[in-house]
C-alpha cells in the first residue's frame, strides 16, 4: 500500500520543456501533501500515477505495480479525485456511483452504494439528480466515486478549491478518516489543507522536488532565515528591491508596512529581528530558493 517513484521525468517534446525532472520519492499509508505553485507539475505526476500518461523516463510503482507495464493492476489500486471535474447532470447520484463501480469491474448492491455515499454524507440524496446538488455535494460525490472500488491508494488533486470554509473543514475530516487505512497523495496549493491534514509534505516547483519530508523539518530549515521589521511607506520600493519579501501587511495608523523577508545576501537592516517561521513562510522560502 504505497507509492514509489524513481527518477521520474516527463518532457513534452512539442514544447521542449520538462514537466517533471528526475523525481524520486516513496510514500506509505496516511496522507502525504504534494505542495507546489500552479504549473509545478503536480497534475502531471498524478496522471502518471494514474497510468493516464506515460513517463519519459524513470518509473512509478503504485501499490507495487508499474504504471506502464501493469496499468490494469494500477487502476484497480487507485481512486482519483481530479482537479475540476465534469459529471452527468441528469443522472441520479446512486446510478452515477454504480456506473463508476461497473467501470472499475465491480458490481455492488444498492445498499453498498448507499453505504459509500454515507461515508461522504450523501446517503440521503442517493436518488437525487446530480444537477440538483450544490458544489460541495458534487465534490463529495467525486470522492465517493474514488472510494467505490475500495482502492488502497487515493490520488487527490486540489480537492478544496472553491469550497466555503465549513465545507473545507468537513473535507479535511473526511480525508483524515480515509487516510487511516489508505495511502493518500493530496496535491494542493492551499497550505492550510496541508497543515491541517498531515505532517508529511513534498514540495514541487518547476517540475523539481524541492523538499520531501516532515512539515516540522521544513520549518526548522527556515529558522534563522526569516527576518521581520516595519518599513516606512516611502522606503518600501527600495526595500523590496534589496530583500526577498515573503509576506507583508500594512500598519495603517503609522503609514508603515510590516514585512517578513529573507536577506537575499544583503546585510541585516538596523531595525530587523529574526522571527519564527510558519509553515507557509517555510514553503515560500523553499520555492523562492
Amino acid at each position, binding site marked *: 500500500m504505497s507509492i514509489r517513484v524513481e527518477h521520474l521525468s516527463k518532457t513534452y517534446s512539442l514544447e521542449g520543456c520538462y514537466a517533471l525532472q528526475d523525481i524520486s520519492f516513496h510514500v506509505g499509508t496516511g496522507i502525504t501533501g504534494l505542495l507546489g505553485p500552479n504549473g509545478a507539475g503536480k497534475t502531471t505526476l498524478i496522471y502518471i500515477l494514474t497510468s*493516464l500518461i506515460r513517463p519519459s523516463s524513470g518509473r512509478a510503482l503504485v501499490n507495487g505495480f508499474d504504471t506502464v507495464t501493469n496499468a490494469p493492476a494500477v487502476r484497480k489500486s487507485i481512486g482519483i479525485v481530479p482537479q475540476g*471535474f465534469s459529471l452527468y447532470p441528469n443522472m441520479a447520484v446512486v446510478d452515477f456511483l454504480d456506473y463508476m463501480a461497473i467501470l472499475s469491474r465491480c458490481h455492488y448492491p444498492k445498499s453498498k452504494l448507499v453505504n459509500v455515499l454515507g461515508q461522504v454524507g450523501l446517503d440521503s440524496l442517493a436518488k437525487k439528480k446530480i444537477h440538483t446538488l450544490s458544489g460541495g455535494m458534487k465534490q463529495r460525490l467525486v470522492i465517493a466515486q474514488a472510494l467505490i472500488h475500495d482502492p488502497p491508494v487515493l490520488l487527490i488533486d486540489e480537492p478544496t478549491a472553491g469550497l466555503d470554509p465549513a465545507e473545507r473543514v468537513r473535507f479535511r475530516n473526511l480525508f483524515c478518516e480515509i487516510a487511516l487505512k489508505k495511502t493518500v497523495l493530496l496535491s494542493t496549493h492551499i497550505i492550510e489543507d496541508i497543515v491541517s491534514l498531515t505532517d508529511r509534505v513534498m514540495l514541487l516547483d518547476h517540475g523539481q522536488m524541492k523538499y520531501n519530508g516532515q512539515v516540522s523539518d521544513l520549518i526548522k530549515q527556515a529558522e534563522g532565515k526569516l527576518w521581520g521589521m516595519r518599513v516606512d511607506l516611502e522606503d518600501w520600493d527600495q526595500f523590496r528591491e534589496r530583500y526577498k519579501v515573503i509576506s507583508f501587511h500594512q500598519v495603517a495608523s503609522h503609514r508603515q508596512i510590516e514585512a517578513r523577508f529573507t536577506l537575499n545576501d544583503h546585510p541585516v537592516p538596523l531595525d530587523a529581528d529574526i522571527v519564527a517561521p510558519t509553515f507557509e513562510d517555510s514553503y515560500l522560502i523553499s520555492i523562492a530558493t
Partner: protein
Amino acid sequence: MRIFLNSIWYEWEIQCSQRSIWLLSCFYLAIFWLNFNIHELPLHTVIDFSTITAQGLGLFGSLFTAVISVYHFRREVQPGFAYFWGRLLSSTYYPWVKLTSSILVQFTALLPTLACFTGLLWLTFGAEATPIGLSICLWLITPTLIFTLSISFLISILVRKSIHALFILIIVFIGYFSLKLDISQTLSFAPYSIYTSALIGFGPDASFVFLNRTLYLCLGLFLCLMGSFLANVLLTVSYRFEFWRLNISLVVFTSALAISSILMAIQYQEISHLANILPDPLRHAQQKVACSDIETYTVEITLDATGRISAGNAIIRFSNQQARDSVPLTLNAGLKLIEPQAIDNDQLLSDMKPGYSSAQDMQIQYSGRMIIPRYSYSYDHQEPAVTALGFESGFFANANFALILGKGSWHPISECTPNSILINIPNSYPVVYTSADRITLGVDSVVYTWEHSEDGILLIAGNYSQYTNNNRMVLFPDRFMSTDNEAKLANIYGLVLDVGSSFLSIAPYNHRKIIIVPLIQQSYWQTTDQSIFIPERLVFAKKLLDTSHNPSLVEKSLNITTLVAQDVLIAWWCEDQRCQDLYSTLIVGSGEYDIQDENNFVAPLLLYAALRLSSEIDQNQEYADVIQQYADAGGDPLKSVFLPVILPDSSVRLLPEIANIGDKLCLQEFLYLLTQCKELSLTRKLTLDEFDRLAVMIPVADDICGQGSPQ
C-alpha cells in the same frame, strides 16, 4: 458480459437524457411525416412505403445524427473526466460501450417514428405485412446509421476540439456527396432509383441493395473498430500493450471486416458495371434481320430453386453458313458458356465461340444467374432506341417468382423467337400462368414445352391473390395495394373490358385472366388465350397519387379509370407486338422523346379513347375539361403533371382536333372508328387527315347510339 450490458444501460441513459436526442427524435418524426402524404399510403406497396421511409430517414436523419454525435463522442475526452479514464475498464470496454449505446440511442430516437410507421403498415396493409415492412426499413437504415456514427466517432477521436471535428465532418460529408456523384451508387447511403415490387421486392436490384447495405454495415463496423483502437492509443497511452494483447481477436475481426468490405465493393462494382451497361441496338437490329435466316431454333433451360439457370442449351439451324457466322449473339452477361466454349463475359459478346456441329448448325450451352440490365426495366429517361427494346432480358427468376418471355437475352439470339422451347422448373414455383403446349410433371420439377413460336409471356410463377369478376380473373400480387383498392381496381378493369367487349370487337372470353406483372413496361394482350398482362409499375400508383393532389380531377373521377382504359387500349392496339415507343409516350409521358410521327397521332387518339371509355363507365361527361386542360398546358410538362399522362407538344396540339371529330360521334361509333384506325395502321401511317376521312365514312347508326351520347 453483465458489466458490459450494465455499462451500455447507463451510457444509454446518459445519452437519452440529452435534449439533443429528443430533438433528433422529433426530427426523425418530422422527416417521416413530411416524406409522404398519408392520403397516398393505400396506393403504395409495402416495400415501396418501407423504402421511401428508410431513404428519407437515412439521408436526412444521418446528417443530423452525425452532427450531434460529434458532441456526444467528445464529451468524455473533455478536461474534468480524468476520474473516468482512470478506471479499469474505461480503456478497454468503454469505446465499445459508447458505440453500442450510441447505436441503441439512435434507435431509441427512432422509436416514435418506427411506432408510427408500424401502425400505418398495420392499418393499411394488415398484420402479415407489418414485420416484412419493418424488417425492410430496418435493414435499409441500420447500416446507414452505423456508418454515420462510426465516421463521427472516428473524427471525434482524431480531432480534439468539437468545433474542428464538426468542421472536418462537414468536409467529409461534402466529399462523400461529391464521390457519390462520381462513383455511381457505390457510396450511397441508401439505395436509390430502385425497383420496388410487391412480388419481387427490389427485383433485379435486390443484389445491389443487399451488397450496398452489407458493404456499409461492414465498413461501419470496421470504422468502429478502428475508432476503438485509436481511442485506446490516443486516450490512454500506457495501456497500449495490454489492449493489443487482450484484443487480438478483435484485430483479426477488424481485418476480416476490412477485407470483406473491399471484396464486397469490388463485387458491387462488377455487378453494377454489368447492370448499368447499355445495349447495342444495332446488334439487336441485325438479329432481327438474321431471324429470317433461322430455320429452327430450339432452346432448353433448367432452373434451380433459386432462379438460376443451371443448364441452358440452344441449337440453331441457319439456312446458310454465312448467316450462321454473321449473326450477333446477345446472351445475358450473367450467363457463362459451358466449356469448351467458355469465354470471359466482360468481353464483347461477338467474341463468343459457340460450338458448330455442321455448316448451318450452332449449339450453345450455358449456365449462370441472369443479371438484368437496368435499362430493360427502368423508368428513367433513356435513348428511344433503348426504350424500344423494352424488357429485353425477357427473364427474371428468384426463389419465389419467375417470369419468362419468348424473346429475351436468356437465350443467345434474343430477338428471334425459338420455335421450340423446353423449360424445366422446380415444382416449388407457384405457376399462375403459362402458354405452354404441354406440361409434364416430374418428381421434383415440371417440364413446360412449347412447340410453336411464342414471343409473348411464356410463364409466370409467383404469390398472387385472385379476384373473380364475371368469369374474369384479376391476379394481384400479394400485398400489392390495400384490399379495398385492389377490389376497386379489379372492378374497373372488369368494367373497361365489358365496354371493350361490346364495342371493340374484343371477343367475350370466359375465364380471361388479367395479371399484374412486374418488370414489363407495357401491357400485353396474349391473343392465343385472350389474357392481358398489366405492368406492375409504380408509375401507375404515381398517377393515382397525382389524382389525389388535384381535387378537381378527383371530383371528375377520371384518372384511375382513364389509366386502366389506357392499359387495356394499348394492349388491344398493340396485341402481340411490342409498341414500346407508344408505351413511352402514353405511360411514361416522356414528351421529350423523339418518337415516331405516327405515335404523335396514335398516342392522343388512344388517350381520347380512354377518356371517352372512362367517361362512359363513370357516367360523366367532364372529359372535355381534361382535354381543355391539355390545351391550356400546351405540352408544358410542369403544367401537365396532374393530367393523366404528359404528352409531347405535337400530340397535345392534335388532341383537341381529335376530340372535335370524336365528339361528333357517339361512343359506339367512335369505338367502331377506332377499330377502323387500328386496321388501317397495319398497312399505312395514320394521320389526322386519315382519321377525319374515316370518321366521315362511318355510317350513321342511330339505332346503336344509346341515350347520353354526344350526338
